[in-house]
């Protein structure tokens, strides 16, 4: 039974991470109806930012500032940079195509993803960069319940992940910006006629979504301890799956989907074999799409003429 709960904890941690990436992806899909394939690569950029912040402050063995401050700087720097990149990508590559056929921005998004991945290869090289998390956050500093151990990085990822998700939910439901986002998602033209600054709203959505991906990237660096230029692709793919399973465009759906994928992955790795993880996650996606094509929490949209 201990093994079961251990896998559950590991799955929830990874799931919280996927949820964050899926959230940004789902938000962007909500306002633009665009699958932002570059989203996973912003996660990769966030992970690299975290790595360079650690190096900047003296490396994992000889940090010149206290660890909590370092973590805050890592998260803020990654969020700001990836958020800014998200806004730039939207402005540069997606905005000119807003009225183009639907397939055009999708192809641009693939191009951006490929460009970012290889720009990172050019700038940072192809080798793995190691965070060395255990050097500054001790793994034994967590707590144990019976035979299940939860280390402090996992606690941080789960707590921060849930806090961000709840915060985002509140932002979308309660604030004026959130209301604008929902209006743009529902009908962009009508929103524009009512005096909503659509461009600003979309830019803000991209900033928030991309910043979440950056934060998730830093978390991934701390959790998995290594970064390279290709980590974005698979993470992006998992996030797409999470968003689709939960119901694309729905915020609680993205959270649920991410946690579900994370836990499923963890159990498959633990009880079956790590070889088949991705194949079985794919099978899960197909199964959900066959039974509930609009996802678990998605709403069925009627097609308007």
């Amino acid at each position, binding site marked *: 039974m201990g093994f079961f709960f251990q896998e559950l904890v590991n799955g929830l941690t990874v799931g919280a991470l996927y949820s964050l990436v899926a959230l940004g992806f789902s938000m962007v899909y909500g306002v633009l109806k665009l699958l932002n394939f570059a989203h996973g690569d912003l996660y990769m950029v966030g992970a690299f930012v975290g790595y360079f912040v650690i190096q900047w402050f003296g490396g994992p063995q000889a940090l010149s500032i206290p660890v909590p401050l370092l973590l805050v700087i890592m998260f803020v720097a990654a969020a700001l940079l990836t958020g800014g990149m998200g806004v730039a990508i939207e402005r540069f590559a997606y905005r000119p195509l807003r009225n*183009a056929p639907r397939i055009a921005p999708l192809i641009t998004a693939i191009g951006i993803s*490929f*460009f970012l991945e290889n720009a990172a290869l050019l700038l940072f090289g192809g080798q793995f960069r190691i965070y060395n998390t255990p050097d500054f956050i001790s793994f034994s500093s967590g707590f144990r319940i019976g035979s299940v151990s939860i280390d402090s990085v996992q606690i941080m990822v789960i707590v921060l992940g849930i806090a961000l998700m709840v915060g985002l939910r509140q932002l979308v439901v309660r604030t004026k910006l959130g209301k604008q986002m929902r209006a743009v998602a529902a009908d962009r033209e009508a929103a524009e006629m009512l005096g909503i600054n659509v461009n600003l709203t979309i830019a803000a959505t991209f900033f928030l979504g991309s910043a979440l991906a950056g934060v998730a990237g830093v978390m991934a660096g701390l959790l998995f301890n290594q970064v390279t230029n290709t980590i974005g692709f698979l993470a992006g793919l998992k996030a797409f799956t999470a968003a689709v399973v939960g119901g694309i465009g729905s915020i609680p759906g993205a959270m649920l989907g991410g946690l579900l994928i994370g836990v499923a992955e963890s159990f498959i790795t633990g009880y079956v074999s790590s070889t088949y993880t991705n194949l079985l996650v794919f099978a899960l996606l197909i199964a959900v799409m066959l039974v509930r094509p609009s996802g678990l929490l998605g709403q069925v949209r009627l097609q308007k003429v």
Partner: protein
Amino acid sequence: MSLDSPPPAAGPQVGADEWVARQEHRREYLPSWLGTVQQAGERLGWWPKLVLAGLAGLALPLIGLGGFQLQVGIDSLVVALLAVGLNIVVGWAGILDLGYVAFMGIGAYGFALLSSAQIGSAGIHLWAVVSIPIVMIVAAIMGLVVGWPSRRLLGDYLAIVTLFFGEAFVEFTNNVAPGTFGGPNGIPGLDPLRAFGISLTSNESYYYLLVIVLVVTMAVLRLLETSRTGRAWQAVREDPLAAASMTIPVNRVKLMAFAFGAMVAALAGAIYAAQQISVFPGDFDTPFLIVVYAGLILGGAGSIAGAATGALVVMVILDGVLRSPTYSGYIFYGVILLTLVAKLRPWRRLGMVLAATIALGFAAHAIAGAISATAVAGGPQSTGMIATALRDWVIVPANPQTPGKFGFVLLVCLLIGLVQIQGRWRTILLVPAIYLASFVWETILVAQPSVTRQLMIGAILIVMINARPQGLLGKRRVEVPV
């Protein structure tokens, strides 16, 4: 790099697309004899042009291609075949198929299993005329199976499912049943393509075969384009709802496009496998898919000739020319110059930009050299004429890696800025942008052709869709505002 927005064309923009203009003889031709050639080309019809292009392709080895050039030619032809098949799905039916190379992989692996010692004690050694149709049909069925779960859904879902399918294919061949699929080591020792006692073993024979296969496929697809099914695909692409109300079975038509694309991909895969004599899972991964997309988008999605030409251009330039530091320099600076000539008007402004760029370079080089000798000690990494011309113009430090990387980031920011601003400032910013591009090229890009190749492919996708969505040869579609 769209530098200036195109001048508004005379006459109504809305509703008068290429097809209407041609039907009503309202199309304008290029001035002078170029227009005459253009008109003659249009009068020629499609099949003589295709035959001429095919004959030119067949004649190309006669001028004496070396082993490397021939291999580049073969790879380019395989990608052209793939692009022509992808055009069915993306260009005509308007579905984003991101698992397309997996169907090529199915073709390659299917052929490998049917013509090697992999299955059973003696293996299966079928004739190519038997095994290739089998793998094509298997791939088409797989296409239906992959498309089926998302049959009720929008194209977006299909894109995700296909992307995952592509990944799953690589995972599958890497991990499942290593005895049969060979795991990461793939399947070695395939039979050559053979039938009726003839077997193709030399690279020349594969080159000729691929030219013929490509021409025949293009002819078949051209007939398909104007057939009932082809018109149904294009109707579904333009408006699925309108197509459905015209009694076109939208889902069936989409799945058919999927299956047809998969068949062409499988054909390309089988020939590719036979020429390589082996198959590996890594050959059918996402980077290869992006190459095929770049070719299709560059040439123009929706046009058969465009797809083939775009793929050939992308492959010949990026796989062949880019490997040589001399020729890649010609292409790089040539494309910059051509873009400037095409986009900068009037001529006076073009002259000013070029003069300012040249002056900036010499001034910067002189100043940097005066401050520190090591700042200019590197010298351009291009070779040949370009290196001689640029020696005193572009700054290349003795240790160019780090400055080159910063230059790259700055260049990307500068290019994004260039697109955002208008008017005089854009012209002024253009000068440092060109210089910086040359700096980045000489410091890091030219030394790493494989990374440069990938970056260029990404850039092609982004820039072409934004600047010229119809590609080089595609037809412009005018959107009627709703």
